[in-house]
């Protein structure tokens, strides 16, 4: 194992660990913190099934965003949907043999990179050009978009312009996963840029706004059933006030 491969193997483990433990801890915090009052944004569903559907329309179609602003919606949705395709396509580098559906997805996942980059570029442009969004943006908001753009563009470079040795890459990552470090990563600068950006993003995930991904499932205004008159909704700390 060369030095660079060793470094990236370590980077990989640290990033995965921080990502999993950090996000897991956040989800645990969200789950254990009570929601003492019924606060769904109305009109809200009257049943749990209804709430599941409401959340589905939010997560899959970004329904509220659609109602809010068509530009943010189209750019954001295209970016997220393409990112999903790209991520699913990447499963092929971590499993052997490759599942059939991942194989079938391959062409879509490849070209989705363009959608992802286009969506990100649009979002970045909006952030710079629209006065209101520029006002509310922190440096980290730009950095997040730029990191994702670097990931998308470096990835596309390797897919469409200057292929990296994908067989060797896969051997190395399968090795990392089974704690076997005999295969080196291809010595490809674009690959190292790609991996650095991906790992960096995983590390900041649990400490940043990227928490919107697990957060939406815990958002009381979206995940509560409208049944306040029928059911009491007493949080443990509120129950103590009754004694």
């Amino acid at each position: 194992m060369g030095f660079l491969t060793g470094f990236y193997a370590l980077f990989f483990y640290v990033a995965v660990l921080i990502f999993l433990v950090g996000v897991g801890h956040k989800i645990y915090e969200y789950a254990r913190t009570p929601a003492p009052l019924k606060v769904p944004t109305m009109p809200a569903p009257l049943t749990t099934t209804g709430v599941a559907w409401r959340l589905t329309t939010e997560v899959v179609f970004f329904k509220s965003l659609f109602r809010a602003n068509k530009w943010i919606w189209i750019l954001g949705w295209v970016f997220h949907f393409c990112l999903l395709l790209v991520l699913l396509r990447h499963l092929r580098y971590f499993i052997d043999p490759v599942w059939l559906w991942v194989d079938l997805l391959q062409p879509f996942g490849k070209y989705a990179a363009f959608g992802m980059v286009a969506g990100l570029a649009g979002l970045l442009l909006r952030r710079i050009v629209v006065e209101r969004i520029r006002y509310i943006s922190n440096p980290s908001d730009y950095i997040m978009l730029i990191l994702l753009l670097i990931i998308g563009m470096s990835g596309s470079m390797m897919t469409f312009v200057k292929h990296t040795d994908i067989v060797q890459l896969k051997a190395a990552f399968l090795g990392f996963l089974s704690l076997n470090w005999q295969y080196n990563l291809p010595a490809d600068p674009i690959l190292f840029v790609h991996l650095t950006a991906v790992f960096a993003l995983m590390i900041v995930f649990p400490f940043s706004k990227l928490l919107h991904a697990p957060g939406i499932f815990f958002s009381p205004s979206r995940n509560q059933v409208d049944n306040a008159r029928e059911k009491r909704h007493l949080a443990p700390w509120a129950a103590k006030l009754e004694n």
Partner: protein
Amino acid sequence: MAAKATFDVPQMQEYPIIPMLKPNAMKTAGPFIAKPEHQAPLGFPCELVENWEQKAVEKLGELLEKYRSLRVYLDACVRCGACTDKCHYLLGSADPKNMPVARQDLLRQIYRRYYTVPGKIFGALGWEWGKKLIGAKDMSKEVLDDWYNYFHQCSQCRRCSVFCPYGIDTADISMAAREIMDSIGQGQKYCNEIIGKVFKIGNNLGLPGPALQDTLEGLEEDVEFNTGVKVRFPLDVEGADILLVTPSADFFAEPHVDGLVGYAKVFHQAGVSWTMSSYASEAGNFGMFIGSYENMRKISLRIRKAALDLKVKRIVFGECGHAWRVAYSFMNTLAGPFDFLDPKYPVPQHICEFTNELIKAGKLNFDKSKNDHLKITFHDSCNVARATRMGDVEGGQFTIPREVIKAVCNHYYDMPAETIHDKTFCCGGGGGLLTDDLMDVRIKGALPRMQAWKQVVEEQGVTHLAAICAICKSQFTKVLPYYGFKLDQVVSVHQLVSNAIILDGQTEE
């Protein structure tokens, strides 16, 4: 009026526009600060405590443990900008800190500094660039001033939460911020003084029982004079079937009181026995405005006690927006279970639900022509629309009041679709802002509603705006003149019912 000249009333445009930002346009010292005598009865420190910076940060930590909403909302915002043009105070004032996300960020910057890993690290190292990078800030007087000013420019109307992809509700954030400020001794005079009156006297206006009795007797005389029918306005009648809890403004303010007359006529014609309570003579619950679960609970428990003492079977709420939110969404949790009431009826019921059921059952007769001189539009009160329901289907809070109006009026028109139902605009005076020391904020915040209203006035010849919220009614009465309309162009929904209802044995006027 001389007073008019002192406020900068925004221009109504042909079409709604999103203004260019004017930083610090609404930077003021905020509303009057509560005095010791307003703070003490609520259990808050009388003045800014020692170490308040640290105490504020600690209180935020305590609230993070108590409210999942706060935790998720402070983490999840991606600053996408969806909410930036949705707040009526932003549209009316152009101050960027009235963008919901910017308002939230006033609290979020403290959260990010003291309750996230990078914030703690950068804070410990004293790296200013790092704090700036992630939008974190140290707690300071400057931050507190911004909190006090801008969290009292939010009417907790939830319009931003409708459009947020994660449902982040600035109302919850501003409630938390106000609770933190109360806990360190910087409360708002208007809200806290009113809550004190409820504890001491029983209602927001401080009307004692005997005065209430007098007022109600006066109303009985008026109705008998006008209709020839003795419609009763009972107070503290033990054993009545229904306890009516209504905002105290209904006892004397215009047009509120005409709504109260409407409820009484409906109860009379339905042949039910009902009463009001001098102990719980207030539907409004300002505990919500200041985000205080404890105070909200104490106020709600008064209604429970009144229901028990008077041995009623049902509770019905009068026309009041935030009151209906606390009643519909929170009261069962805060002061329940209400298993001593008749299980056939939801607890509580809204007066519009009550009236609409009677209309549907054909138990009320109306002469709709009595309202023919009016062309009506309906203002969906923000908290009714986005925080409650009426009836047993989703969206009943939109259909039921309109059904009631249409049953008693021949001429009804909706305002533009972008400004009604769950997209409705707040009147500009909700959430504890209905005080003269916030008049400038109130006038500016009314702009989007006034603009939509102007459109139906010009295109459909609409003459009156019907509302089901005491705050909306008071606010519109006050701000309509600033926009070139007449203050009496606001009516109560049950005022329309009152106009048209045919009472048994009624003499023609």
